[in-house]
């Protein structure tokens, strides 16, 4: 699973080519994505920005294999996933992707460590070293002391840390985050960004939707959308040469 490559052999982990997503509502067509092409490199840290309704979430859903584009192609880990059936898409999500949501989306009846474990139960074949991985990740996000707690017993920032650990447990190719700091105060937001930054430095590819400029600034590239099209792509920091992931 860990097929992250050294920088000299850096390659595209995910790329979409000419993707459009059209919603038809009462005979009226909405082009949520209009012929979008973008490539995500191994170790990339991309912030997607744009006004409300510009198609940011739609793009992230397509990247997350939760939604299929109306037209265009999407290559993830070398496979065209645009045409896959529902079951294969589920498997692809479980194997190659990690999700972080604005509203954390932890499962209420499960404890911290069990929440982190959830993606492991959907791995076919199972990943080795399940529970230890979860404990290590809990430590990584600084929640070693809260393993048995329920989500309702945690602060927003702590819940988002659990979600981040959960997004890492299947060793994904790409981490997708839709406004991960949208529900957090500034200080906590920056804690979370420090964590994502550290993960990126360790070689993780991260695609993140955000409204906030100072959050976007922490990424390496910023893609701006407008009416379903890419308006601009700007680079804030170059990709660092990198070693393996811890």
């Amino acid at each position, binding site marked *: 699973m860990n097929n992250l490559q050294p920088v000299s052999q850096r390659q595209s982990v995910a790329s979409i080519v000419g993707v459009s997503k059209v919603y038809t509502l009462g005979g009226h067509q909405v082009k949520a994505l209009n012929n979008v092409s973008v490539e995500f490199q191994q170790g990339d840290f991309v912030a997607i920005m744009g006004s409300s309704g510009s198609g940011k979430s739609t793009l992230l*859903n397509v990247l*997350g294999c*939760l*939604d299929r584009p109306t037209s265009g192609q999407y290559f993830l880990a070398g496979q065209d996933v645009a045409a896959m059936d*529902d*079951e294969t898409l*589920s*498997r692809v*999500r*479980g*194997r190659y992707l990690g*999700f972080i*949501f604005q509203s954390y*989306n*932890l*499962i*209420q*009846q*499960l404890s911290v460590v069990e929440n982190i474990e*959830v*993606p492991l*139960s*959907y*791995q076919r074949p199972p990943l080795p070293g399940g529970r230890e991985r979860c404990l290590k990740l809990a430590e990584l996000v600084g929640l070693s002391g809260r393993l048995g707690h329920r989500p309702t017993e945690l602060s927003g920032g702590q819940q988002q840390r659990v979600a981040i650990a*959960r997004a890492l447990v*299947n060793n994904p190719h790409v981490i997708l985050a839709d406004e991960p700091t949208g529900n957090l105060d500034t200080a906590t937001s920056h804690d979370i960004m420090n964590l994502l930054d550290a993960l990126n430095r360790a070689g993780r590819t991260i695609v993140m939707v955000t409204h906030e400029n100072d959050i976007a600034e922490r990424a390496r590239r910023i893609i701006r959308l407008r009416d379903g099209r890419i308006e601009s792509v700007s680079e804030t920091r170059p990709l660092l040469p990198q070693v393996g992931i811890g």
Partner: protein
Amino acid sequence: MNLFQQLRLGFRSLMLHKLRSALAVLGILIGVTAVIWLVAMGEGVSYQAQQQIKDLGATSIIVRSIKPAEESSRDVGSRFGISYGLLRDDYERILTNVPTVTRAVPMREISREVRHREHFIDGQVIGCTPDYFGMNRLKIARGRPISQVDMQGYSNVVVLAWEAAAKLFPIEDPLGRAVQLGTEFYVVVGIAAERTAAAAIGGSLDARQYDRDVYIPLSTFRARIGDRVFTVRAGATQLETVELTQITAVVEDMGEVDATADIIRALLQRYHKNVDYAVVVPKELLEQAETMRAMFNVLLLLIAGISLLVGGIGIMNIMLATVTERTREIGIRRALGATKGEIVQQFLWETVVLSGTGGLLGVLVGFLCGPTVNGIRQLVSTFLPEVWTALPPNIRNLEPRLAPWSIIAAFGISVGVGIIFGIYPARRAANMDPIEALRHE
């Protein structure tokens, strides 16, 4: 996830709504308990019936006098009243002409008031031979049965059934004292032990209460009471002439019963203008009882089916609510890699935990059937003795018999019901669009 983890997850998800889950479990529990209890009662009743039929004797053939419809009776309008039924000659004929019959026991019976001082009962006066007691497995609690000497001497002796003795002699010891039958006095020589009524199955034989019987020698019956008796029916007094009320013929082997019954029928047909008799084969009653039991079980299964259906609908209701409430969780799991099949599985396991718990508890409560019935019996007999004695002995002596098949079936069906009624909610969960589900509040 392995089986244990699946069950644990199901259990914990159900614990989110303890009361709701408990009610669903209760629905199944009641269904399963109902099945087990009803089947146990049914088995108890049919066991009792079978025992009673066996008491009548699987190798015996009972021939009874039947009063024919008025118009067809012998000597209609005669001033001697009507005359019908088995004759003493029939008894002789059966005994001598039917080779397979090893023994035959005649009996004559009428309803009469039996008195002892100011105490009296509406008793059944049975004129019988000494064989009658062994034949009907009547045990003598105290004293002795009717003897051959009594028969030969036309003695005025009587054996009282348990209840008759208790009613007539509330205080004194009845043995050696006299009871009055019509104008005659009879000395009490024995008291029969209490026994339950014989079954009335298929309508071929009346339910026989033995409790108010008073037994006198058949010879004495003929000499003192005679064949002609007045009966009062619909306000009119009628004179009836009946020689014997019943003849019980016994064969050696159960295999001979049917053929012998046919011979007896043919024999009686030759001498009786009207069919004023009935030939009853307890063996057939036994078979009828089997059929009855099968029908009863079908009925019980129907009731069981309905109650489990109701339980199943309860489960479906709760699972639909659960699925709606946990739309978000379903979206999360789908995003994290769960396939539709895995979502279906998860929710099915939950219904299995619900219905399985209900089933298990139902089986446990099912096992309490015997103690519960006993407890109720104790309560009623101590606190409501009048009600208790008014109950028919069939009910007083009912012992529920747990049927192993009913326990297995009830538990299996309850789990099956859980799965069947869980499929729709689970599929509904699985078919949600993950994006929509994640957006759900």
